């Protein structure tokens, strides 16, 4: 089998097709996932291929969508429950954090919940405050959940397969703004295990830990800095729960500096946890305080000029790295 270029959404879609072909216990439910193929075409062709029993449109009822997945997963099926926009997890949150996440533990290990929740996060489309959020820190805070944020087409396919094969409740957060981004994707079925960071670019002067769509932005910034002889290492954790602290710490021990970039708001974001872990594990190696670049503490605004100011980009990452390197 060979590798060819696919878009992010096509890669995800191929992963869904292949895992549904492999495992008859996998089914998909959600709002407009069947007849319409999902509002982002993530699920195109699944209804035609796997039929109405396994690919079902639901009422607009997020609690029931996730709860149905919890109950079916507890009975050994592998539900994929789509929540369309990440903002909608609030409507379903009881079933996610009180039920799915806790059943294994509070029932003394008697139950596993191999549920996968798919959703789309991230700003940059003038979709405003209720269709643009990045809420991964909420989810990562809950023991029992696993959270993946694919940043490449390769990861979009590998992480959805890894999520569905995982015996725990997982949330795969696709990036709306990356759906059309192309990249190399192997034809065969493969899974990316949760908790394994990807070193997206090797470097020696500083580490950037970038989340989701900030990975390609960080890579662009690294390219800009390289022309000035600045060597940047870019780490993509891929999953924020579990978090591959080892890879991040090893990188910081090599570069002695760290910048964390995400488009979720900075306060209480996953960057705070990563920063804390770096300082606990590699304090003696740091030449400067760990820096963060993230959204201001405000809802996502609508006007493009405001939204552009809100979400970090390559230019601001480049500036943040230069500031970090100035610290002695």
């Amino acid at each position, binding site marked *: 089998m060979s590798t060819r270029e696919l878009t992010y959404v096509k890669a995800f879609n191929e992963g869904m097709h292949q895992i549904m072909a492999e495992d008859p216990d996998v*089914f998909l439910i959600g709002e407009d996932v069947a007849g319409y193929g999902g509002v982002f075409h993530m699920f195109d062709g699944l209804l035609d291929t796997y039929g109405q*029993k396994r690919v*079902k449109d*639901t*009422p607009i*009822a*997020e*609690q*029931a*969508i*996730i*709860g*149905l*997945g*919890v*109950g*079916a*997963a*507890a*009975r*050994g*099926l592998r*539900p994929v429950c789509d929540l369309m926009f990440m903002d909608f997890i609030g409507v379903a949150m*009881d*079933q996610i954090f*009180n*039920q799915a996440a806790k*059943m*294994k*533990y*509070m*029932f*003394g*290990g*008697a*139950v*596993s919940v*191999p549920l996968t929740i798919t959703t789309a996060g991230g700003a940059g489309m003038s979709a405003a405050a209720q269709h643009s959020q990045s809420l991964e820190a909420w989810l990562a805070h809950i*023991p*029992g959940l*696993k959270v993946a944020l694919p940043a490449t087409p390769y990861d979009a396919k590998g992480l959805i397969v890894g999520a569905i094969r995982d*015996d*725990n409740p997982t949330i795969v957060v696709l990036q709306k703004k990356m759906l059309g981004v192309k990249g190399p994707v192997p034809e065969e079925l493969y899974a990316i295990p949760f908790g394994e960071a990807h070193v997206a670019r090797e470097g020696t002067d500083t580490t950037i830990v970038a989340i989701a769509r900030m990975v390609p932005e960080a890579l662009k910034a690294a390219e800009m800095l390289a022309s000035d002889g600045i060597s940047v290492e870019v780490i993509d954790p891929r999953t924020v729960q579990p978090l591959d602290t080892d890879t991040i710490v090893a990188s910081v021990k090599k570069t002695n500096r760290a910048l964390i970039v995400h488009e979720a708001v900075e306060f209480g974001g996953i960057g705070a946890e990563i920063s804390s872990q770096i300082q606990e594990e590699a304090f003696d190696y740091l030449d400067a305080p760990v820096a963060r670049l993230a959204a201001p503490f405000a809802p996502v605004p609508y006007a493009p000029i405001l939204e552009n100011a809100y979400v970090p980009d390559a230019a601001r990452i480049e500036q943040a790295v230069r500031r970090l390197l100035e610290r002695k």
Partner: protein
Amino acid sequence: MTAPTDTEVLPATREVVLDLHRRMVRIRRFEESSGKLVETGEMPGFLHLYVGQEAVAAGMGSVLTDDDQITSTHRGHGHAIAKGAELRPMFAELYGKTTGYCKGRGGSMHIVDMNRGMLGANAIVGGGIPIAIGAAFASQYRDDGTVAVSFFGDGATNIGAFHESVNMAAVWDLPVIFVVENNGYAEFTPQEKHMKLTDIAERAASYGIPGVIVDGMDALAMRQVSLEAVERAKRGEGPTLIEAKTYRFFDHQGIKGMRIPYRDPAEVEAWKSRDAIRLIETIGVERGLVTAEDFAEIWAEVEAEINDGIEFARNSPDPDPADILDDVYTV
């Protein structure tokens, strides 16, 4: 819409009467004993007693198999016991011991027994309802002839999860039975202050499914409507909403009685005079199906089981704090 409540017309055999009676006595004695143990401080935690409502769980439990699934509530001991749960691991769980159903991780509000289709008690009001439709979805997906039952209270029918779940189950004809145990109070708030309806079964009409009212103090009547709803679900005709009119003899939580006078003592006594266990004993004897001695024997056997369960729990090992991270994830 209203189910027959005159138990004279309902079929009852000696076996059925004894079976229902034993289920109810096990629930009652487990709970009364647990209440005392919490009161003396020997047992930790919250305790939401089911006493008074036994006929509902017993009637439904008597028509289910171990392969059928149930979801329960914070007031869940009765559902677990009616589904066949053993008293040793139940007591051990309330004591927080490793031999408990949840290895001491869950306690009273999270009893689970996957071998008997008890998908877990649930401390979020209404939280088990969406899970039950998922269990029923699995039945339909596998076409295995099983059903799922969700027990919940009158208060839970005001929460969004109820509406979303019943609607989706109706749309997909899922083999699920929704049992609302209307004990008249959402915690301490009486029904007339939390909904406009008198009969919650009427809510079924909004989802296009049958709603049935049954005397929740009458285990035989409860068994009959349960049987009909289960058969309907197994025929692929979809869900039923059963409203069992019942009453909680103890307070919302604990055994010590009312902290605030939210219930009229006369109301409490009126319901207690319709005690489900006494009712089935009367029916059994009056119809010549069972003797008073037979019933006394059940009480004695259950008492021995209770004492055995408590001793077992007392002598079981405590969990080791070193294992506190076990089972957060499936590895």
